């Protein structure tokens, strides 16, 4: 395969001036780089960068001013926030790293990409995935796991495009490369490709509803049923997988490829080699060996076993050193060139970007220390942390790279250096406004949650008080975000004007390099490799032979890749297997029973609306939390939760003990318009759930799916049984609502299922062990008929807790 690619290159360049003949006797090949694919990815980066940040500003406005969603469910915060995060990560950062990889890999390997067709398939496939994300998330089609929201058909497409098109193309390019040594940037790319594949596949293992209906329920899936699935993992294990994925996605999608970018483009822009090549290698292996362990730090004080979260903390703290090594390595690359930084906005972007990398990687380990985490978790502190990383590190590195590329890709001088410089300042101010405001918001809210007054009561028992306090900061964030958006628009204009000045035809440089001999895969004798090389290289090569490290790994993409996979897989297995198998990790609780069929479909609505973007379902064993919310959460409570819904941010109160806290009628009216109940609430209105019909027919398939995943549903899996049970419970709840003075005719509406679920959450634990048989027909909620009206904010509920 490699020879045919090489031949293509020769054919492709056959038209060039013949006077520059081959060196006699050497196997020299000629080739041109594919810069068109880089142009395409750069354009996509700019477009999606704009879309992602605009979406961010929009949901930012919604938090300050909830009516901004115009009451339309497609625009509500819970549905759009995943769109924003997915666009920022996979569309903006994704296209940016593809541009970097396609540009630098060809040059570092001295070859054109392995296949132009695969390059195009990769490009268009990836854009199609992004578009399908934009067409599904606003409709509530989601797996309900952060940054892994896309449903199974899109997940399959991602696997194909990522590994089948991009991966094959990349490794094919390595195979036909004409430079023996693989520069460290390529290692980072290799680690990115293999690790993201592993993460994506294992976190997204799920059972599609359509499959269940086809093989079990015997019912042809309709419409959205094709797009629904549940993770095979439940509760604690699902949480563990999710944050193993989530954390490592940050490592291997937003860190390693950008480090590759840094190690290639910073030396280019500064016109000097990286400060210490050795340090860059240490940096690489430390990320591969250590980062993969740090995931559990996202789950401190949760129902995750203590050993796992302590392990996550230790490894996270260890990460601090290599990360700073990397930052220093990047900054020191500018040694002797600092005068250039003052005049070159590209270097400014790089310097500030790398500085943000240093800040984020300092802050990350700090946030993983349990005591800090107890304050920061669930607050905006995390949001500030990730935006320092995304806007500062990923964003600025991308911008620096794009500005460096524009004149080279369009073969015309950059339209305006001044505008580029303005972009830099506007965006920097934007980030600072954003981050400082949101840090303040996070710490303010964290402290308010844990504040007690002299009499030992919560100082802010009404949750919404702690939210309203943040609104001014949210407006500052909107301003900061807008500045960042304006910067991207400036860059787009600059790019457009540069493109307009392009030559009529792009000049393509024809390069020449000796081909590598092919037998290296089989472990060639070192002496035979260098027939085509000059003396200096021979000398260098004999020294090179002493380097065991290089000989085995760096030169051999295959073995190198195997090692990376082995490290990542071993670490993951050692981390994951015990979580799944140690029985004491998830002690069973006899009174915890599966959801009734109606509650189950209600839970799917909860997932679909993205309530988890604002509500956690995980009470930590901290005094202020148990006082505010009730008994802390136990691992055994979540054994039937596919997917887990612990959440990561509390814009609204925790809901882990919501069941029975309010009346059915209260919930209906609250969902219809939260501001009818609580004037200052930021929660979106869910009035559409009061009018949209519940699809009872799909319930059987849902119950069958859970049964296939091991949830003991008993009789409910008999054909039609689940539907019958759901209708019965729905009618009972509808009657209850009428008795409570609420709306009539809700028995067949979606809201009934959702409210049934809300009334069930967290109630099993206080029931006797033999109560509530699997899938009871009656509403499984005790004491819910008595509305527990209380003073401000609908507080009330059990004696131990207030809100």
């Amino acid at each position, binding site marked *: 395969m490699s020879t045919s690619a090489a031949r293509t290159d020769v054919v492709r360049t056959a038209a060039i001036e013949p006077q520059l003949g081959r060196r006699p006797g050497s196997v020299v090949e000629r080739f041109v780089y594919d810069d068109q694919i880089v142009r395409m990815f750069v354009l996509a980066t700019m477009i999606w960068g704009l879309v992602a940040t605009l979406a961010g500003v929009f949901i930012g406005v919604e938090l300050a001013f909830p009516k901004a969603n115009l009451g339309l469910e497609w625009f509500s915060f819970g549905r759009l926030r995943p769109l924003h995060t997915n666009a920022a990560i996979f569309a903006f950062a994704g296209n940016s790293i593809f541009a970097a990889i396609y540009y630098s890999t060809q040059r570092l390997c001295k070859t054109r990409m392995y296949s132009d067709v695969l390059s195009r398939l990769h490009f268009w496939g990836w854009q199609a995935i992004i578009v399908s994300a934009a067409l599904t998330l606003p409709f509530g089609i989601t797996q309900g796991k952060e940054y892994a929201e896309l449903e199974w058909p899109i997940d399959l497409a991602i696997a194909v495009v990522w590994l089948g098109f991009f991966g094959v193309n990349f490794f094919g390019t390595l195979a036909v490369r004409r430079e023996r040594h693989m520069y460290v940037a390529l290692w980072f790319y290799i680690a990115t490709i293999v690790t993201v594949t592993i993460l994506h596949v294992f976190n997204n293992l799920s059972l599609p509803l359509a499959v269940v209906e086809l093989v079990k329920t015997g019912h042809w899936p309709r419409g959205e049923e094709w797009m629904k699935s549940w993770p095979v993992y439940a509760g604690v294990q699902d949480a563990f997988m999710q944050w193993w994925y989530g954390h490592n996605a940050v490592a291997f999608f937003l860190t390693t490829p950008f480090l590759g970018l840094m190690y290639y483009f910073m030396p280019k822009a500064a016109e000097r080699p990286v400060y210490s090549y050795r340090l860059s290698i240490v940096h690489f292996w430390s990320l591969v060996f250590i980062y993969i362990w740090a995931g559990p730090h996202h789950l401190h004080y949760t129902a995750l076993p203590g050993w796992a979260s302590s392990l996550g903390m230790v490894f996270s703290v260890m990460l601090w050193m290599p990360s700073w090594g990397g930052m220093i390595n990047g900054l020191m690359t500018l040694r002797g060139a600092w005068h250039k930084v003052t005049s070159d906005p590209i270097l400014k972007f790089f310097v500030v970007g790398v500085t943000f990398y240093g800040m984020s990687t300092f802050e990350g380990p700090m946030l993983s220390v349990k005591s800090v985490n107890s304050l920061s978790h669930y607050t905006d502190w995390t949001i500030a942390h990730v935006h320092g990383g995304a806007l500062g590190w990923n964003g600025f590195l991308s911008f620096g790279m794009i500005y460096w590329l524009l004149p080279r890709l369009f073969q015309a001088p950059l339209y305006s250096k001044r505008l580029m410089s303005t972009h830099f300042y506007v965006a920097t101010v934007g980030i600072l406004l954003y981050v400082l405001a949101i840090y303040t918001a996070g710490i303010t809210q964290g402290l308010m949650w844990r504040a007690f007054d002299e009499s030992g009561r919560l100082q802010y028992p009404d949750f919404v008080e702690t939210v309203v306090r943040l609104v001014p900061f949210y407006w500052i964030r909107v301003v900061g975000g807008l500045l960042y958006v304006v910067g991207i628009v400036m860059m787009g204009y600059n790019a457009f004007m540069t493109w307009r000045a392009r030559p009529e035809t792009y000049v393509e440089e024809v390069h020449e390099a000796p081909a590598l001999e092919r037998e290296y895969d089989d472990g060639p004798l070192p002496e035979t490799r260098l027939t085509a090389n000059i003396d200096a290289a021979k000398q260098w090569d004999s020294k090179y032979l002493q380097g065991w490290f290089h000989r085995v790994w760096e030169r051999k993409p295959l073995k190198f890749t195997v090692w990376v996979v082995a490290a990542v897989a071993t670490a993951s297995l050692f981390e994951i297997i015990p979580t799944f*198998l140690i029985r004491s990790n998830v002690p069973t609780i006899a009174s915890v029973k599966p959801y009734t069929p109606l509650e189950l479909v209600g839970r799917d609505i909860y997932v679909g609306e993205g309530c988890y973007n604002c509500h956690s379902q995980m009470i930590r064993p901290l005094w202020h939390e148990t006082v505010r919310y009730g008994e802390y959460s136990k691992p055994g409570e979540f054994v039937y939760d596919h997917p887990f819904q612990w959440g990561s941010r509390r814009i609204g109160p925790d809901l882990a003990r919501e069941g029975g806290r309010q009346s059915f009628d209260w919930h209906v009216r609250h969902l219809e318009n939260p501001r009818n109940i609580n004037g200052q609430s930021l929660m979106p209105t869910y009035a559409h759930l009061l009018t949209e019909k519940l699809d009872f027919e799909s319930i059987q398939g849902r119950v069958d799916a859970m049964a296939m995943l091991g949830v003991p549903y008993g009789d409910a899996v008999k054909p039609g049984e689940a539907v019958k049970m759901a209708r019965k419970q729905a009618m009972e709840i509808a009657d209850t609502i009428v008795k409570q003075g609420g709306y009539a005719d809700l028995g067949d509406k979606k809201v009934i299922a959702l409210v049934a679920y809300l009334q069930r959450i967290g109630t099993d634990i206080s029931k006797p062990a033999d109560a509530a048989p699997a899938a009871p027909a009656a509403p499984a909620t005790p004491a819910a008929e008595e509305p527990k009206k209380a003073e401000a904010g609908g507080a009330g509920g059990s004696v131990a807790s207030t809100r």
Partner: protein
Amino acid sequence: MRLSEIMGRLDLAFWPQAALVIFLAVFASVVWRLYARTSREEMERAGRLPLEEEGVVGRTGTK
């Protein structure tokens, strides 16, 4: 007895701790070899790779 039950009775919490030590050891050995067994010249040569734009032998145009 199911396999998962057998596994469940083993004290697997020890695993990750053992793995932690092994990983650190491997990582330390990688770093050691890197500094002890590689030469300055080869590192410098490798570091200069991105700056090499040699081998341009001609130009051609495309639309």
